């Protein structure tokens, strides 16, 4: 079975690479090549699934080339955590490509999109499962570069060139930081093995006082990939590219920061300074991006700012050492947001479809009672699932879940019929959703827990996450104050708008002569003569 796991692990990456090659340089028609690449992506996903089975049955799978006996030089390492992340990436990648077969049909640049997206998937799979730090860093850089190519596939679309350039710069900055960290680690601790527990911790000890610097460099890389803080500017421009590129963001590109922080958590968690930087920037981004999102008028713009905010939450979870919560968020959000991007064309409401609201509105008391019942029941059931409470940050997640349940049932009961059946339906639906979520959380917790990195000495208390919630509520409240509202609206609307696109007025004329002699537009002075 171990062999099967190794075959699955290596085969999955190989299939994606071959797929990229087929699209980039294969024979046959454009449609044919893209189709083959998509099929290979599905093969890759199936092979990852095979590895998952192997890991579940026989434990972690190591596929390495040893340098010094017992010390891997290069290789892949699948445990419960890494293989789960890899499964997410390969499945999202495969769905994106299946979708694009129809969506990009007839587009001459489609093969380039398929090739580059396969490279993104292959490289991020390697980042998830790398057995050594150098392998991880190299794959990380390849993934970033390939994503820039994905974005730039259609340079004829407005805004794509400048967006791709900005992404290249910002991701490149993060990559440089990560290269710096790699250099420091390699000179002090050699080729660090990620597969054997304790190797990363030992490397941290060997780094000595440099550990803070290395942690900060890694954190910069993670923040840049996840569009946090000052790096947030690259993300909004990506909506210029065709929709599948936005969905592909969630195959490890924008959530790559979380992957990096979880995989190198032992190293970064050792520095309080790094963790404070991460928490402050991520929490700030979560709050601000959420506020901007609420001031966006376009569907994709609001999705992309929501992504930025959600990534802030995920990275903040990493900063408090709630790695399991971060991984669950990474998985759930990637699936959620990719779906919303795919379906972003469905947001035009056709007239005459919405039902008339029920005649009488429920009283505030009835709404409150319904909401309290729904929240209490949901939280009680979730808290009763042992694996939910057990993991670090589990209790904090319950607080957030309670807020979500409250918000949902309050809104729901405001529109429901004043009838026992419909009120009960809202409570039961929220309860079922909460229970399913609790089961997923608990199940994933039980599956991944053995592979979760230990929290470092620098990680902060999970309750700091509540600060995110408090800051969010405070911002929303302050923004509604009449005195500040104008200012807030003006700032947030402007913050959510892309810079002006330089436009050329007209193409040069290469047509027939005689145009020069045409009548002039007018002879009036351009503007007030007095102004000079």
């Amino acid at each position: 079975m171990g062999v099967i796991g190794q075959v699955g692990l290596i085969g999955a990456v190989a299939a994606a690479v071959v797929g990229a090659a087929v699209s980039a340089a294969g024979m046959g028609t454009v449609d044919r090549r893209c189709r083959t690449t998509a099929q290979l992506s599905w093969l890759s996903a199936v092979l990852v699934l095979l590895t998952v089975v192997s890991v579940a049955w026989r434990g972690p799978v190591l596929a390495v080339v040893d340098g010094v006996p017992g010390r891997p030089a290069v290789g892949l390492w699948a445990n419960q955590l890494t293989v789960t992340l890899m499964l997410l990436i390969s499945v999202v990648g495969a769905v994106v490509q299946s979708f694009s077969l129809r969506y990009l049909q007839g587009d001459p640049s489609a093969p380039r999109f398929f090739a580059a997206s396969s490279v993104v998937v292959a490289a991020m799979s390697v980042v998830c499962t790398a057995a050594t730090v150098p392998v991880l860093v190299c794959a990380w850089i390849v993934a970033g570069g390939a994503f820039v190519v994905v974005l730039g596939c259609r340079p004829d679309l407005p805004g794509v060139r400048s967006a791709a350039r900005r992404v290249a710069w910002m991701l490149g900055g993060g990559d440089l930081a990560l290269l710096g960290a790699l250099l420091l680690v390699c000179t002090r601790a050699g080729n660090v093995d990620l597969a054997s527990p304790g190797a990363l911790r030992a490397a941290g000890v060997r780094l000595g006082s440099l550990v803070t610097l290395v942690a900060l460099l890694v954190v910069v890389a993670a923040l840049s990939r996840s569009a946090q803080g000052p790096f947030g500017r690259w993300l909004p421009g990506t909506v210029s590219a065709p929709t599948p590129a936005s969905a592909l963001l969630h195959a490890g590109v924008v959530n790559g920061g979380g992957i990096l922080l979880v995989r190198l958590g032992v190293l970064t968690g050792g520095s309080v300074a790094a963790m404070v930087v991460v928490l402050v920037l991520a929490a700030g981004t979560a709050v601000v991006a959420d506020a901007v999102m609420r001031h966006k008028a376009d569907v994709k713009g609001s999705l992309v700012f929501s992504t930025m905010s959600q990534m802030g939450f995920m990275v903040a979870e990493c900063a408090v050492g709630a790695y399991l919560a971060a991984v669950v968020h990474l998985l759930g959000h990637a699936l959620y947001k990719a779906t919303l991007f795919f379906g972003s064309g469905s947001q035009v409401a056709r007239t005459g479809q919405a039902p008339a609201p029920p005649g009488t509105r429920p009283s505030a008391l009835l709404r409150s009672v319904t909401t309290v019942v729904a929240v209490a029941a949901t939280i009680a059931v979730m808290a009763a699932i042992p694996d939910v409470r057990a993991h670090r940050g589990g209790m904090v997640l319950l607080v957030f879940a309670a807020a979500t349940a409250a918000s949902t049932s309050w809104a729901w009961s405001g529109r429901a019929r004043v009838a026992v059946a419909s009120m009960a339906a809202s409570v039961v639906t929220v309860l079922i959703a909460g229970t399913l979520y609790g089961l997923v959380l608990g199940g994933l917790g039980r599956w991944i827990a053995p592979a979760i990195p230990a929290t470092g000495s620098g990680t902060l208390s999970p309750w700091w996450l509540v600060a995110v919630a408090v800051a969010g509520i405070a911002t929303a409240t302050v923004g509604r104050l009449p005195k500040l509202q104008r200012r807030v609206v003006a700032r947030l609307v402007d913050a959510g708008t892309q810079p002006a696109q330089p436009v050329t007025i007209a193409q040069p004329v290469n047509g027939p002569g005689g145009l020069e002699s045409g009548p002039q537009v007018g002879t009036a002075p351009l503007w007030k003569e007095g102004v000079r």
Partner: protein
Amino acid sequence: MNEREQTGARIELLTEIDEAARVIAPLWPLSTFIAVNPLWDLRHLHFDDAVAYARRVLDIRGYPSSTLWVDAYRTGRVTDADLRAVLDEVARAGRPQRQCVSQDADPKGRRVLTAAELHDDVAGTQIAATVDREVAKWCAAYLSGVLPDPGGVGFYGSWREVVACDPAVRAHAGRSGQRRIAGLGADAEDAMLRCLEMLGIGREDRVRELARHLARMPGWAGHAKWRSRWAAPDHPGPALRLVDYLAVRLCYEAVLLEAASDRDSRRRRRPVPTRSDHRSSAHHVADDGGSPGPLGAGQGPVGDVGMRLTELDAVDAGRVWLVASERHYRDWLLAALDRPAPARRGQPDAQAVFCIDVRSEGLRRHLEAHGPYETFGFAGFFGLPIRYRPWGASETVDLCPVLIRPSTEIAELPVTGATEAANRQLAGRQGIDAAQKAFAMAREGSVSPFVLAEASGFAAGPIALAKTVLPRRYQVMRSWLRRVVAPSASTSVDADPSTGAMSDEEQALFAETALTTMGMTQGLAPLVLLCGHGSTTENNPYASSLDCGACGGNRGGASARAVVAILNRPAVRRLLADRGIVIPDDTVFIAGEHDTATDQVRLFNIDRVGARHRGRAVALQSALDRAGASLAAERTSSLPGAESLGHVAYPAQRSADWAQVRPEWGLARNAAFIVAPRAVTAGVDLERRCFLHSYDATVDPEGVALETILTAPMVVAHWINAQYYFSTVDTQVLSAGDKTAHNIMAGVGVVLGAGGDLQVGLPLQSLCDGDRAYHEPMRLLTVVQAPQMLLDTVVARNPLLRDLFDGEWVHLAARDEDGSAWRIRQPGGTWTEWTAADAAVARS
């Protein structure tokens, strides 16, 4: 300025805005997309002059590019003979010496530019682009409700409240810019006048300046034009008016230019440019791509035709190609129709009336081949403009062409005995709606989105997988789930005057007009189907562009149901009989809806048809099923990706597929509007390119019906045709661009990518198959079978028709009756005998 002068100046300004807005077309919201001639308000000009003016202001291409010609030439859609005939004609007539209406229509005129564009060109600034960004930003914020307008003061007033705090103004114009904006008055018109003065725009340049301002972003301006001129006065939501829109634009332009000149004067360099400084090439209208230079060896015509084409300039060459391709199609069509009408096959089992939409032609052809059925063509709202309220819906739908207003409200109600089921269904729908709203609210919260996203992700992932891999199965499952929550209930559309519909007399009057126009006053079959149409597509912002244009961009089934309800009422039939139209007692009307994406036809309330007609109705349904299946098979091969996509390429799959950007071709390749009895076209494969309107001149001696047909359905067909024409010919400005980068903005339109202007026209995926154009751009050819005298009278008494035919927006061909020769109406009203330029075309 005293008050009277001020009022006078304002009135003058409003007139100038109207004049300037001629160059842009209204843009309907996406929920009810309407295809419109982008140059409709320039229709008083000749086509060529309107295009020339639009080129100068909008920077559009007005004639097909060389790429399109090469393709047409290679595929034989234009031949040497066609080109030679047109070239001979041009040589004979000389350059058309038309009286240009104004200097603005001069084809060789220079580009019209705003003050900011002129400044940008000389000083290398990006002021015009900045103005666009700011205006687009605030339009979006206003329409989505982000920019609050509690007092209903309009766009300008709301913008003025907030803009003083806008960091962008500070960044581009500094504190002085903020002060200047604050100094502009609260009234939009006054502010505009102030800004025009600040910009030094003289009276004589105002219209051009305003026109170019509107043309910078034809999408937002088009939305404002729709809202100001076309929308119902009680249309809900924020109203972006043209005056406000222009006021905000001019404010930005004036303030940014003042700031720029402040900067210039501080640096003591660069004299202020004036209009006469602009001699750079950028100011000339763009080349139409017309020079035959780019045609490589063997691609275009060689020999004498090739030589003569090279001698023409770009615009003239484009014109020659366009006319030649129109002639080629005209020759083919008239030759195909120039044959003895097939003998009537005796009493049909049923008659079916379809919309004039080109897609109906395919279904009619197949239905006639599948049984003893007779078909008719009529505008899809069947002449009855209604405001329709679907069962339990919160809002009404206007089911009529946008040129008219609905006259009556008709509701869909549960049939007797189904009230309880219908209420249960409504409760279910309300539950689903409440859940969706709750989810949306939680997404917008400040704490709730985090857990909501991760929790829903584990459900969304499998759904996305299913929708991508098995689109049809997923759709079936989703509608099953919907039926579990909101079970279907039997409803009917009733026209009883007691329910608030029209009176019996009004209904009878309407029925008389409709039946006469269709030519259905006698010989009615026992079963008559009125069939509307709609299109079911998934994840498609342009879904309404595939629905019935005659029903205002909505599905047409409800119109058919309402008209059927009227025609089946005994009271109406009695009154009709008094007017001389006898509907036999055993004739029953039923309603249906053709889904043009899947080619399935659904008949409404077939269970309520009496036992006598049950068998016929069932037979009709089965014939429609077979006809739909063969039509779907016919269409499959023309849809792109048929070979490479496998089973997901079939129409029914496309309709359910959220990844499909070309669910159907819609009205692409539309070319002609035929007003004649079906016998003239029956049996000819018109390739779903013709609007077919039934018309029998023998029952219309006064030409009343003909006049209605030419002034209403033909105008709608012309709008659609011109929309397709200009979107194909100018893919930059007048087409909505690539669907894959579309981003729905404020629910009213789409932008390309991250923001900017709303896109106008049709998306590229509706026009092109990859790099190749699928639509063949040509102006509408109207073919009428009616006495020439009658036709001349009708055209003479309608200035609109004279504009369209004399200005060559629409071509007109006619013949008096079966077997007589086709004649072509020339601009000015003379008629010439039709002869095919290319004899081979006429023979084939």
